[in-house]
């Protein structure tokens, strides 16, 4: 497969995963903003999903509709859903012959939905949840279409590598930003705080089933970082990243493959042989920063060994 094609597939997939993450985050935070006007703030969302620095975030209007406009249809925000979907589509456009026609049509439809002027108006005037649900569904159609139609070859491996790398980074970022909003080992945060954190990554129900009876930071960390069952946990994402990466192995030896395999394997064991207590003991913030560093390193190494 052409290096450029692999690169485009990888980024198309990363952008789609990011769009999904942003949309879910916005939906849940919007619901929260209607629920709890005292505790709620849009700042964490802006910190996780934009490139604004802390001063800019402080100066940013925290009016709900303004944030939604900026995050969803904002042309000036390079990480708005509009711009991300546009980038995903541009990538898809340059590799149309390597994805299925259905996938292309699905991304193309998503793009045209994003470009529709009525969408921006509805986001300002109507119920934002309805609008966000429409967009989330477009993303799900993409995921389903890809699963059902995409050939299980090298291209599919790069799609999955992109998807799970992006997801691992997102989950660790979300946890990091949310946790640093609290004191060092503050177990007394409002139940709503944890509830909405878990809801925004679709992990609330699993949490209730697993732990019952109240929220504890230790349990939240265990689910979001270490759970094999939770599809958005860091370990789940890294395991899948590794599995799809291993399929790139060919008969003739490739130094790039060996290097990356080492990097990912090391990261995997680092997480696997941690427990929620050990993580909290060595400092959650430090731990998550280290994981993130390894994930970013993996991305750069892919770039160097496969896409250049």
């Amino acid at each position: 497969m052409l290096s450029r094609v692999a690169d485009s597939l990888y980024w198309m997939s990363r952008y789609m995963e990011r769009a999904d993450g942003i949309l879910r985050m916005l939906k849940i935070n919007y619901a929260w903003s209607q629920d709890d006007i005292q505790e709620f703030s849009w700042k964490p969302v802006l910190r996780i999903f934009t490139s604004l620095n802390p001063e800019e975030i402080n100066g940013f209007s925290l009016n709900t509709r303004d944030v939604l406009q900026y995050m969803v249809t904002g042309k000036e925000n390079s990480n708005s859903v509009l711009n991300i979907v546009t980038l995903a589509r541009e990538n898809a456009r340059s590799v149309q012959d390597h994805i299925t026609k259905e996938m292309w049509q699905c991304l193309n439809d998503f793009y045209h939905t994003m470009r529709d002027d009525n969408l921006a108006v509805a986001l300002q005037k109507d119920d934002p949840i309805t609008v966000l649900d429409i967009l989330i569904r477009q993303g799900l159609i993409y995921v389903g279409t890809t699963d059902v139609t995409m050939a299980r070859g090298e291209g599919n491996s790069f799609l999955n590598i992109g998807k799970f790398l992006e997801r691992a980074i997102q989950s660790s970022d979300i946890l990091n930003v949310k946790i640093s909003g609290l004191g060092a080992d503050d177990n007394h945060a409002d139940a709503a705080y944890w509830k909405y954190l878990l809801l925004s990554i679709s992990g609330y129900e699993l949490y209730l089933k697993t732990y019952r009876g109240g929220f504890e930071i230790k349990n939240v960390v265990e689910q979001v970082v270490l759970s094999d069952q939770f599809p958005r946990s860091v370990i789940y994402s890294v395991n899948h990243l590794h599995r799809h990466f291993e399929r790139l192995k060919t008969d003739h030896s490739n130094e790039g493959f060996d290097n990356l395999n080492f990097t990912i394997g090391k990261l995997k064991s680092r997480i696997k042989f941690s427990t929620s207590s050990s993580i909290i003991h060595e400092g959650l913030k430090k731990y998550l920063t280290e994981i993130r560093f390894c994930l970013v390193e993996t991305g750069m190494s892919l770039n160097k060994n496969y896409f250049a």
Partner: protein
Amino acid sequence: MPISDLLQSYLVDNDTWDEMYARASVREQYTKAIDFLQQLSPEELNKKEDLAKKLFMSQGITFTVYNSGEGIEKIFPFDIIPRIITATEWDFIERGIKQRLKALNLFLKDIYSNQFILKDGIIPAQIIFSCPHYLREMHNFAVPYDIYVHISGIDLIRDADGTFYILEDNLRTPSGVSYMLENREITKRIFPDLLPNNNVRSVTEYPNILYRNLVSFSPRQIKNPTIVLLTPGIYNSAYFEHSTLARLMGVELVQGSDLVVDNHKVYMKTTNGLQQVDVIYRRVDDEFLDPLVFNPTSMLGVAGILSAYRKGNVAIVNALGNGVADDKAVYTYVPAMIKYYLSEEPILKNVSTYHLAQEEEREYVFSNIQNMVIKKTNESGGYGMLMGSAASDEEIFQYKNEVLANPREFIAQPIISLSSAPCYMDGKLQARRIDLRPYALCGPDGVEIVPGGLTRVALREGSLIVNSSQGGGSKDTWVLGSQGLAGESE
């Protein structure tokens, strides 16, 4: 059957050949389709038109116009009423194009080797050597099977009495074939059953034939040669076509930056290292193909590709230097080529053409300028031309000065009215001018033309310019099977 207003409002210019209407009655090939259309109400037809638009949009069959930093998606306008060609007409066109391509391939081989046609005084040497697309780099180099024009899109028009004329030979990188294929797909969706009921011949073989030919051009005789389609990239207006063809043939779509030349061999950069390329179907113009030889600022090409080509390590389709054969001044001599190389009479006629470099002809053209269209010899796409009938005195004056400054670069032709065909516009049938571009493929076993092509439409009333860059649209183009088969299909 309800008599709809469809036909009653249809006005045909008496001095024009209309594809559907002859002396107030519908031509036989159109009867079934028109009967079918008449049973639909205007609302239903409008719905079909909307559906067609939606299909084009959602399939991304669009080109992007970049305006104020923001891309706007545009559809190449599509008219829902098909253009219908009879089996007899097609047989004539097919024979004519095959003959012409045979002569043009022989001409290119000759002009890049012995140049007998110049030595025998059939074509003035001056015309050839002054052509900017004549490439000295192509001399004395044998291309596989002596084929230069692997893919052509020859433009045909019809005069007031229905005679077919060749308007242009497009022998470099003709585009539009994906619209021939996609327009047919759209017709299948909006008019179910209409195609089989009319015994319309299929065009879907095109990518298969092209692929088979490309394989046969591979210099390495191996089982699975690497074939690539070289595109200028996603910002090119024909990008949709490039990706469609690559997909339909299952070949790799590459950009210049994906290829490298090492030791006179072309490779593509893959996730598993370099892989040798055998055949390149390029959609990049000669001038941008190799920055070492041609335009040194080109980012679209591959440095060293020409040397690999000349060494015979890679096949390039179409061959380089074909522009010398579709130059508008050389066009005049194609009938002479047919006689010279094949000893045959040309089947399809040329439009009579005046060379403005010759003084008497220039005088004649200038004094009859209202009936003339003047074109630049090396431009296409409807750019840089003057329609004498529509231009103001001021425009004519300026254009004349341009001509006088460089007469070799201009030719003139009498304005041909072009045939008209019904289009569904604003809720009724209206006559619009059309042309026809069939796509011919030359391979080791001869020339093959899929029965169909691109019919381009001048969407403005009375306009004679069909180019998409000048506001043209397109239609699905039907070639009917012979009568016997039509009976069987019922």
